[in-house]
């Protein structure tokens, strides 16, 4: 059985979409919620706990969406930069490594 993951939603505005287009990875976005674009970066349970401890204002919406929300915008920007660099959404480990 694969480990449960908790996506971090990076919501895509025009600025972010331009960066994704430039890097040729705009196809990684998904259309959700009435056409809103998002990149979902998965976190495993231990990464989720680490993030929630580092950023107490963030929360894991266990009741509705099972996603990690309300991470500071600069953290989302960092995650997006890593996505652009790696061409992969598997970047939470890299983020945490850069923070420790």
């Amino acid at each position, binding site marked *: 059985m694969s480990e449960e993951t908790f996506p971090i939603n990076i919501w895509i505005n025009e600025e972010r979409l331009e960066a994704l287009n430039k890097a040729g990875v705009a196809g990684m976005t998904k259309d959700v919620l009435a056409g809103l674009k998002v990149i979902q970066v998965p976190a495993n349970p231990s990464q989720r706990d680490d993030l929630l401890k580092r950023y107490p204002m963030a929360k894991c919406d266990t009741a509705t969406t099972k996603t990690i*929300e309300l991470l500071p915008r600069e953290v989302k920007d960092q995650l997006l930069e890593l996505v652009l660099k790696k061409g992969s959404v598997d970047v939470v480990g890299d983020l945490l490594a850069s923070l420790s």
Partner: protein
Amino acid sequence: MVDNALSPHGGTIIERLEEPKAAKERIKGLPSLPIRSQLAREVVSIGYGYFSPLEGFMTQADVDSVVKKMTLASGYVWSIPIVFDVEERQIQELGVKQGDTLLLTYEGNPLATLDIEEVFSYDLDVMAENVYGTKEDKHPGVRRTRAYAGRFLGGKVTIVNPPKINPPFDRFFYPPRLLREEFSRRDWKRVVAHQTRNVPHTGHEWLMKGAWFEANADAVLVNAVIGEKRAGDYIDEAIIVTHDALRTAGYFAENIHMTSLLFWDMRYAGPREAVFHAIVRKNLGCTHHMFGRDHAGVGTYYDSYAAHRIFEELPDLGIYPVKAFEWFYCPECAGIAYEEQCGHKEAAQRFSGSLIRSIIQDGVQPPRLLFRPEVFELVMESAEKYGGGSPFVTESYLERGDPVMTVPAL
């Protein structure tokens, strides 16, 4: 045997407001005690009758009965202890004893008097476990309870100097008597209350409209809880003006929607807090109260629908609970849908207030089907006007934000 169905609770709106001239005389020579913002808000709520039939802070008999039986000593249902805590040191310094009257000051000015009927202690673990169903410090209500100073003063409160409610909140401050008069003027006989501490998204709007239908109501009363804030919450100014905007922008007809406020620091007591909300909104003149999933809950301490079921165990409270269940955004229906009604469950797109906040925090405007553009504009306007650029509570907002109420010099 008391009649819990009486509206207001106990049959009378308890207003404890001294005339200005008499107030000056009343406070002469009284020992004064500065109070923190939570107690100031509760003094206001007691003095204006939101907490009827309470006339003041609870004595030990009331606290014990509320904690263990969920009723006042008189027998009226009441679910949350309303207590005035004080350090033993302050009692000694002021020489406070039963029969004395204290002048309660807020930010340096007289606010109210407290006629001390009793000085007592109470086991805070017993209080926490009964009210919140847990003793874990992770629960914010338990933390609040454990943070109480060691002693309590019970007795009647009288406001001697009405607070000034500052813009933009002033036009939403309708104490029970005034609000009941307003309902009567508008010929609203059936009013369903919507409890909020959030900027409304279309899910909220849908639930309010559903509750209006279900209650066959004349109107929806949005009653926004204004109290202690945590970093990351929406700022209070944004919450109150955006709810009003649902009417001014036409999402609710002019004659079926009204926004108001309640001074209260959320306890996150789940089902017990739902009962408290019902009683307060009954005092405001509401006949129905909407309860969604996880009403006033926190974390996983309460079952999602515990706040629905608790009313089945209580006598008729004279306010009917309107129960709201699961909803989602349906791309096929192109709108919000109830899970029980919509046949496109496989396409359901779920969202929450936290998710919308997350979108806004990322600098993205949510689609109009989730978040009304007029609401978004007002959120951003409130951010500039009141939030130092952020629609969310920041440390600087907590330190320097304009106060919701001020107490003028007497």
